[in-house]
């Protein structure tokens, strides 16, 4: 029987993979994809909580829809910025975009 725990473990694992990718990957687009993975992990957790904790309300599902919409907006801006970066640096390798360092 699949229960709430399984969904939460899946969400936690996905979130951790996403966080790892966001911190360890060099390609800016892969980093954006990893962030999407983190947001999707959140969506799974939201919907699972909503289904098992408050089955009569749709709070979690609505939250997930809003998260998706905002994530789409964020990615649109993110890709535009990555294109601008590519024009200047001729690379999207995050380790080579280092004009400013402390």
């Amino acid at each position, binding site marked *: 029987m699949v229960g709430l725990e399984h969904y*939460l473990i899946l*969400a936690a694992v996905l*979130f951790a993979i*996403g*966080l790892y990718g*966001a*911190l360890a990957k060099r390609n*800016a687009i892969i*980093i*954006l994809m990893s*962030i999407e993975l*983190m*947001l999707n*992990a*959140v969506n799974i*957790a*939201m919907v*699972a*909580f*909503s289904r098992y*904790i*408050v089955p009569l309300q749709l*709070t*979690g599902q*609505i*939250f997930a829809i*809003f*998260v998706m919409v*905002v994530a789409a*907006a*964020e990615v649109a*801006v*993110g890709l535009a*910025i*990555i294109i*601008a*970066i590519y024009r*200047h*640096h001729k690379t999207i390798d*995050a380790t080579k*975009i280092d*004009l*400013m360092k*402390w």
Partner: protein
Amino acid sequence: MFSETVFTPLFLPELTLLVSAVVVILLDLFVKRKWWLAAVSIAGIVVSAGFAIAMWGGDSQSIFFGMMAVDNFAIFFKLLFLVIAALVILASTDYVAKFARFQGEYYALVLLSALGMMLMAATTELISIYIALELTSISLYILVGFLKDPKSTEASLKYLLLGAVASAILLFGMALVFGFTGQTQLGEIAAAIQSLSLSGVVSSPGLMLGIVLMIAGFGFKIAAVPFHMWVPDVYEGAPTPVTAYLSVASKAAGFAVILRVFYSAFGIPSWLSLDWMLIFAILAAVGMTVGNIIALTQTNIKRMLGYSSIAQAGYLMVGLAAVSFLWESSYRGTVTGQGGLLFFLASYALTNLGAFTAIIAISNKLDSDLIADYSGMGKRAPLLALALTLCLISLIGMPPAAGFMAKFYIFSGAVQQGLLWLVIIAVINSVISAYYYLRVVKVMWLGKPASATRVPSSIALRVALAISCLGVLVLGIIPGFVMKLAEMAAQMFVS
């Protein structure tokens, strides 16, 4: 509860700002003289502020089915954001010439992010808090990259990637809090936590993890220390007016949302609030020490002010650690952590805006942000140098500037809450900070000017600078009025 209509006059300040942002974008297509855009933006801000002032002092009300609160706390912050946005727009009228084609978008994005911040201070429900936060953040990501030169786009990318990770972490925290309480409305979360009858941190690790993740997510917005890595790069790369805006408005919005969420959702039971107050106390101590020590070695003035703003976030978090839940008659008349925090935010906003406005004028002429190039500025531009000196003195926290009263209030609030150790660390840090602030003053007044040419500045910029400096002096010499407003705003929490 369901008797509300969709439209409510209590939403007018936000609506006005939204309409003026759209009008500015459309107007940009038709007008040749671009100063019209700034004028329309300012007009929108003034009307919006008028609506907000008209609501001041009323009872707390809840609109949109408990998603937004209209109370003195929200109105205090709305007015603060509107003042900041107006000053930033005034200060950027010269600077926008650098992005010739997109001036309308620039002003519209400033207005939209101000709208997001106003919503951040007012929303009382997790979904709308997230939307408000993202409205602010996405507008700011674009504004940071507005110069389109290598540094600016790099700053923008760093801000976007780190900001998106931070908001994902915040969301995961929200998901856990929602999961363990079954609610997203802050007041109902508080009620649900009480009904869980928990007995300590270990009794619900999931909920505690959610709260900690939310602290991390919000900590990014206010540049608290382990989440501050974006600050220096973004401050250095962004267009200077945007840096000014970012350093005060986005930070103030972060503190507004933290105060509201942690106060109304996680305020009771008392062991829970003591837990997160302790976390903020530790973050405060680490933040001011790290910020001040790294700032000592900086050579770029925007980067230096970036580290200084990390340190200032540390002082501000002293106020979060000293939040008072008591409002008994014996407490009336004494300064509480949250009142001091609101006053500090107002004075910090004026001070930093003043400093950055002077920097905009000077670096427009010099085309450089290096502190060494400010040599002899006291002779080349005496008024600008005087204004910058006043603001730097205020940042140190010396009388007669606003920073002194702000630190006085926030530290005395902390002492009342028994946080003497934190106040001692903060005072030692203020002394350290004097070194790097005064270094700029020394270079400006005692250094040799590189050339004899004067530094020109437009009238709008001078007005912005004059308002900021006047504000700094007024808040420093007669702080009573603003402090009273701050206390009134803070009272909304203790019913």
